[in-house]
Structure formats: structure tokens, C-alpha cells
């Protein structure tokens, strides 16, 4: 059994993982009216998490991210479906969407759309599915 020497991988991972995660969140937030979206954002996030798994091993990442990825699937589905069901409360047709502009301190005027919430559901579902599949295969001996 030889000892792995993955200094370069670990050093770059600690840098790249943050860039990936940041860009993933950007894609998620921009997705409803410019390139991006919940799906690709979710894929990118799982890529970042996966990179951490490769660099630091299962034990270390589990300590940092104590998340049951399987449970993200129903949570994401519930959010996505919830945005549809919201239309029942407001008495508009199913899957109707709306948006408005709000002014935030520091950020300035920002457009908030209900389509983003649907993307958020997709985002969680994709992370859940990707991580469940990859970790299941990884555990298989």
C-alpha cells in the first residue's frame, strides 16, 4: 500500500471548489432569463462537491458536509411542485409566473421572479440525484 501524494490536487481543489460553487450559484440565480438554470447549476455544484470527495476522501467531506443527499431529492421536488401549487392560492392557472423589481441595500435594484423558485427546486433535485448516483457507484466494491 503506497501513500498517495496529492498535494497539487488538494491545493488546487481548495481554490477551484469555491470558484465552482460561486459560479454554480450565479448560474442558478441567472438561469430564468439568461443562460444557466437550476439544472446546470446543480450539476456544477455536484461537480464541486465531487472534487472535494476526490481530494480529501469520504470521511473528511462527510464531516464538513453532513448532508443526506438522498433527502435533497424530495425536498427539491417539493419546492418545484410548490411553486406550481402556489397558483391555487392566488387563483391563477397552474404554473403561472410573475416577477417584480425590488431595491436592496448594497445590491441595488434586483429583479425577483417566481421562476427562480422553480429553478431552486430543480437545483436541489439535481444535486440529490447526482450525488446519490455517484456515491452509490463509488461505494460499490
Amino acid at each position: 500500500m503506497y501513500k498517495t501524494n496529492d498535494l497539487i490536487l488538494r491545493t488546487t481543489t481548495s481554490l477551484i471548489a469555491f470558484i465552482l460553487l460561486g459560479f454554480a450559484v450565479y448560474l442558478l440565480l441567472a438561469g430564468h432569463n439568461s443562460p444557466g438554470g437550476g439544472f446546470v447549476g446543480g450539476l456544477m455544484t455536484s461537480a464541486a462537491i465531487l472534487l472535494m470527495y476526490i481530494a480529501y476522501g469520504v470521511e473528511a467531506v462527510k464531516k464538513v458536509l453532513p448532508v443526506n443527499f438522498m433527502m435533497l431529492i424530495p425536498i427539491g421536488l417539493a419546492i418545484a411542485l410548490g411553486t406550481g401549487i402556489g397558483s391555487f392560492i392566488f387563483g391563477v392557472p397552474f404554473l403561472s409566473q410573475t416577477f417584480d423589481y425590488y431595491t436592496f441595500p448594497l445590491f441595488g435594484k434586483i429583479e425577483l421572479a417566481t421562476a427562480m423558485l422553480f429553478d431552486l427546486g430543480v437545483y436541489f433535485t439535481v444535486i440529490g440525484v447526482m450525488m446519490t448516483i455517484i456515491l452509490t457507484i463509488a461505494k460499490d466494491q
Partner: protein
Amino acid sequence: MSNLAVLPIILPLVAAIILIFFNSKVHVSRALTKVFSLVGLGLTGYIMWEVINNGTIIMETGDWIAPYGIVLVVDSLAAVLVLTTNIIAVACAFYAPSAGLGEKEKYYFYPFFFFLISGVTGAFITGDLFNLFVFFEVLLMASYALIVLGGDKVQLRESLKYLLINLFSSMLFVTAIAFVYGALGTVNMAQIAQRVQEADQQGILTTVGILLFFVFATKAALFPLYYWLPKSYVVPNPVISALFGALLTKVGIYSIFRVFTLIFVHRVELTHEIFIWFAGLSMIFGIIGALSTSNIKLIVAYNIIPAIGFILLGIGVMNETAISGSVYYLIHDMVIKSALFLLVGVITYVAGTSDLKKMGGLIHTYPLLGWLLFISAFVLAGIPPFSGFIGKLLLLQGAFEGEHIMIILIGLLTSLLILYSVAKIFINAFWGDKDAMGQIKKKSTKGMVAPIVFLLSLSVIMGVGAEYFYPVADSIAAYLMDPQIYIDSVLKE
């Protein structure tokens, strides 16, 4: 605008998502499944009532008017099928806890059950050809998971075949939709119908129609595309087989119904004439399959194929009597097939084998099961006064009006053989000496018989009380024969 149309799709989805959270708590899952399925039944019953009294419910998702957005159309045909789907869901939900799923119940059985119901309901309701494909995929995904649930060796083998054939036909489906969009520039069914009518269904459109027919024929297991069906339907648990047998192939035949009574109706002598022959061949080959085996599960699975043949026969003949017969037979078959699959599941469970040659004398220990099977054999074959008779009578009457004598003969002969194939189960498994199978210990069938009795009594009521059900089937047929009603109600012209 009415959100009522989307509720039968959303309710199972909500149920499925909630049930994922309660997956490890089997008792909670069981109770919730029963509650949700009963709520679904009530809801769809109300929708049915609403549709009959106030006409088609149309919902434009996201407030995008047809043909630009996706529309959901609950017309009388969709409503009655959705109601039947939910009736079967209730029976299966009550049967499932005692179906002997064991550990498999914890492998997300109940969420997938509801995903399947949601997909099936969506396929019935949608008014958009591409959306139909999407709902096909939803129900197929759930069915892949259910068929392989637990991962026994034989299940893996059959699910591979099932997966490949369905992937292939889905691929063809998308291709056909691309052709439709390329030729007509729309995927909204009402607008497709309108444009096909304007173009007088020229050569290329008929070709696309036939391509769509083959896609749906694969899903519905018509001759010659049925070879994947029987074995893959018998490997999973009986309750899953019942769901598959009652719902999946029926979605295929429903799609043929929709497409060939609404869209491609201008070259009947070209398209529908072929259907009659496909129907006849499906009957013959299906029943030969059923007679060839002594595995009781396979006998029932093979019986799906002639039933699909009978339904297609009505579409092929394409007159009002035959179409009403098809609708009646479709509903009848959904109910009786699920009942038979569940019943055969119980028989296999109590006998410990599904091989007829090893059975005998069960009537002494389980008289109720025996008589239930006896009645269902009669219902299936179409002996008066049961529901199968009414459907077949209308179908054959329609065929007679259309002067298709040959198919009537095939149909009658097939009915006789269907009766024989199911009576064979009764004779071999239930007749005979008390200890034909040696000393068998009486097993408890608690919870398994009630859903079967529920479904069978429904079949009997549909036959005996045909006076009340026939007018509904008749009005659906009249409605289907005039595609303009559908087009006008969706496009609001």
C-alpha cells in the same frame, strides 16, 4: 381557466413526495397511501360529475392560451379513464400491504406507485402531443423502478428487455413528433387536427400517422410488437403486475384512440382498415399464447393482448356503435385485468406455485377464491350479464354494421378460447381431490380478497346495470366521432 383539471396529476405527485419522507416507516406509508388514493378517487369522481354536467374542462398552464401554451383537456373520455385509474389505484393501495412485498416495501414502493398514477393520469389528460411523450416518460420511469424493485435475477433479465423496447419506441415517438412539428408547425393536438383537416391529410401526414400508430402499438402490445409483454409483466409482485396490466398498455391504446379519432380521420380506408387486421391478429396470437402455457400468471398476462385487439377493433371499424363498444370494453378491461392479476397473485400465494400442473383441489380450502375466479372468467370472456358481454356485443354489432364479417368470426372464436384459457385455471387448480396437493396448510388471505371483491363487483355492476353506463359510453362515442367539438373547445373558436 380551471385548476381542477390539473389536480388529478398533482395529487399523486404530492403523495409521492410526502411518502419519500416516510419511506422507512412502513405503517405510516401504508396508511397515507390508502388515504391519498381514496382522496384521489373522490376527486376524480367529482371531476367526472363536473364533466358530464358542465362539459369539457380545459386548463391552460401558465395562462398561455392554446395553441401557444400547454393545455390540459379533461373531456368525457379522459375523465372516465382517470376515474377508472383511480379506482384501480384504490384497490391496489389496499392490496399492497398484504401482497407479500416484504423488504421491497421499503425500497420506495409507495412513492413510485404514485409517480406511476400521476404519469398515467397526465397522459390521459394532456392536450399536447409532446406533453403526452413527457407523461409517457414519467410513467415509464416509475414502471422501470417498479419492475426491477428488489432486483431479483429474473426481474433484472426481464426489465432489461422491457427497458430496451420502451427506449426504442420512445425514440421513435420523439422522431414522429418531430415530423409532425416539421410538417404542421404545432404539437397542440387540437391544432394538429385542424391543420391535418385543412391539408386533407396528404401522403406524408398519413405516414406520420402510421409511425405514431407503431409507437403506440409497441406500448399497447399489439401484434406483432407484443413479445416483450407477457414475461416482463409476470416477474414483479402481483400488485405491480396488476397496475401494469390494467394501466400501462391502456395508455398506449388510449393514445391510438385519441390520435385516430381526432387527428388522422380523413383516410379511414387506408389507416383504420389496417387496424382491423392488426386487431384480428392480436386476438389470435394473444390467445394462442395464453393457451400454450400452464403458468397461471402468464395465462392472465397473455390475455391482455386479445383484449387490446378487441379495443382496437372498435377504432378500426370507426362507427358510433363500435367506438362506444371500444370505450365500454376499455373500462371493463382495466377493471377486470387488475382484478385477475390480483386474484392470480393470491392463488399463487396460497398454492405456493404458479404452475397449474402442480395444483388441484384448492376449492376445498379456499371456496371463495374459487368462485371469484369462476366469475372473473365469465366476466373476461364476455358471458352475459357481465360487463365484457356489453362491450363485445357493441363491438361486434358495430363490426356487423361495417360489414366486417371475418373479424366477427375471429372475435367470437377468441372469446370462446379466452373462456377456455381462464376456465383451465379453475378446472386444474380448484377441482380435484381434497389432498391433490398433499397436506397444505391454510394460509391467511386477510386483506387480499376485499380489493378483488370490490373490483369484481364493479365489473358485475357494469354488466347488470348497463342501462346506466351505456348512455355514458354512447355519448363519449358520439363526441369522439365529431372531432370538431374537441378542436372548438380547445381553440375556442
